[in-house]
């Protein structure tokens, strides 16, 4: 219990440090830091309907973040959540376009499944390269994000293009209403139910199954797990596939839910924020729930800021980035603990 409290305290302390850095940068850039933070707080949590907007962003973010939790616990830095999320969206849109005239419920289920499958496939190749030949997964998944982004542009301006759309942003035809799982508000029993189900499943998987427990051990000491007879390659590939699948599901939820169509470049900060949520929550599923609500608020504030407060939404990107910069710091708690050995990636 004390270790958990220390972890929470540490996360809060480093998030506060990140906010201080952001405040300094805002002041240098000529914005008033207190005003900026007040506007962010207002847009995120206090204004009318802010909590509903918060949930609208938090649900897909939480689903993506559970995938990051699985991969990172296993020790694989799958930072390709954004690309897998886009592929999930494409999968859902393909299913909707490819099954005209089917019963709506079946199409919805098929779209969610195809999105999940596409996401998993987009995580498969970096995972395969990593496990087969040790190709660094950070680069492959990052490059995968750019490739998926371009694929999304091609899909929305080519095969699935909405001919009546305007020139500025390309998008697919709107998803017919009966197939969608929520209105534009993005909060519906279907979405909440899916989110809770994914959360519960991943919690059980991580904490109560051999896969989750061995994966968590593999992330800390792969050599030991190998010597105990577990197949590291299988664990790793499973972690990649599952993390891609959840990101894909989140993408499908976004297309079938609040967005209602496949738009090129939708939710551009999804992947990075999902990684952040998992890290701030110290790779715990239950912790991710609360942290996802916090970052969901920030995501809704990034729409609120330019429209209502007239401030640039890049401020939210800065806050997220500054948190990423500090959140893995370990100097502070180590003063209260015996010195631990340090593992550095480059000195393998």
């Amino acid at each position, binding site marked *: 219990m004390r270790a958990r409290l220390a972890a929470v305290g540490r996360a809060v302390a480093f998030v506060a440090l990140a906010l201080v850095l952001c405040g300094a940068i805002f002041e240098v850039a000529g914005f008033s830091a207190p005003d900026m933070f007040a506007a962010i707080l207002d847009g995120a949590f206090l204004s009318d309907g802010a909590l509903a907007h918060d949930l609208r962003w938090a649900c897909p973010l939480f689903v993506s973040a559970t995938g990051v939790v699985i991969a990172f616990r296993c020790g694989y830095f799958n930072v390709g959540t954004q690309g897998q999320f886009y592929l999930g969206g494409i999968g859902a849109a393909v299913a909707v376009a490819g099954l005209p005239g089917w019963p709506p419920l079946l199409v919805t289920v098929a779209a969610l499944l195809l999105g999940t499958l596409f996401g998993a496939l987009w995580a498969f190749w970096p995972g395969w390269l990593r496990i087969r030949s040790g190709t660094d997964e950070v680069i492959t998944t990052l*490059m995968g994000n750019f490739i998926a982004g371009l694929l999304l542009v091609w899909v929305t301006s080519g095969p699935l293009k909405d001919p009546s759309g305007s020139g500025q942003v390309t998008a697919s035809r709107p998803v017919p209403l009966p197939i969608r799982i929520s209105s534009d508000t993005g909060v519906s029993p279907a979405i909440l139910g899916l989110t809770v189900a994914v959360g519960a499943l991943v919690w059980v998987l991580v904490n109560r199954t051999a896969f989750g427990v061995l994966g968590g051990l593999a992330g800390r000491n792969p050599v030991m797990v190998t010597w105990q007879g577990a197949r590291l390659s299988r664990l790793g590939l499973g972690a990649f596939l599952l993390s891609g699948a959840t990101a894909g599901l989140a993408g499908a939820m976004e297309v079938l839910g609040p967005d209602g169509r496949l738009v090129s470049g939708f939710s551009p900060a999804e992947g990075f924020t999902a990684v952040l949520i998992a890290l701030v929550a110290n790779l715990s599923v239950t912790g991710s729930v609360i942290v996802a609500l916090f970052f969901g608020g920030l995501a809704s504030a990034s729409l609120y800021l330019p429209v209502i407060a007239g401030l640039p939404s890049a401020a939210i990107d800065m806050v997220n980035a500054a948190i990423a910069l500090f959140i893995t710091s370990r100097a502070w708690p180590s003063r209260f603990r015996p010195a631990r050995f340090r593992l550095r990636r480059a000195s393998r």
Partner: protein
Amino acid sequence: MIELIVAVLRTATPMIYVAMAGVLAQRAGIWNLGLEGLMITGACAGVVLTEQTGSVAAGLAGAVLFSVLLSALLWLVIEKLRANPIIAGLGLTGLGLGGTDLAVQAVYGSEGAVTAPVGIPTLGPAFGQFGLLDVLILAMPFMVFALWVLLRRTRFGLRLAACGEHPFAARSVGADPARMRLIALLLGGMLAGLGGAELSLGGLQIFSVGMTAGRGFMAFAAVIFGAGHPVGATFAALFFALVEFMGIKAQLVFGERAPRDFVLMLPYLATVLGIWISARLRGGVPLNTIELRDG
């Protein structure tokens, strides 16, 4: 042929400068994924300061200054707060991408492109097709050679390599790994700032938000592909630039039959191919060696 050489050099040079920053960090034992952030900061500071002062020298100085400042921040977080270098580097990249967006809006009040009145001096029309090459491109081979000498033929370079490969051994002969890493990151910050400035001031003299589009990550991949060697990384960056050029050529020749979006994917695919080959040839990361959680 000359057209190809000039075009590839112009595309590759910004990446090469940034890749050299990556080589320095790699030698010192840091996987610097903040390169993308340093590059865009350099690109933004270069154009904005040139536009404000009218002097390219001020623009280049600003690009170097801001990039060095961010590098110092990264060192502080990695070395003093002992953060995970990969996540901290990605955070720095986000800070660069968001910060330049914010800076452009703070200075010009709108989100869009900024144009500098003057660019980095070029050879001029007297040299025909080579006239498009600017000072930084011409200086590039000498810079790479100088870096090779520094890393492989000086006491400092060898100590730096020792700090990266076996910090304990380096400490035992009196080298302070933390300090060596600071020097490597600050030097790298200078080079990455120049690379970013070359990207924006060298070509169209325009800065637009997010214009690096993963080139900093590609430069990092060039470091891996080039086995952490300055010359290797240079050729890797030239290869990525060549692929990009071929794609643009293919589009000119084949037109509609070479879809634009797939052509744009080529450099990213080449990057994946590059580090896959690198892993096959030299052995990659065999086991996952990152520990994030305590206790």
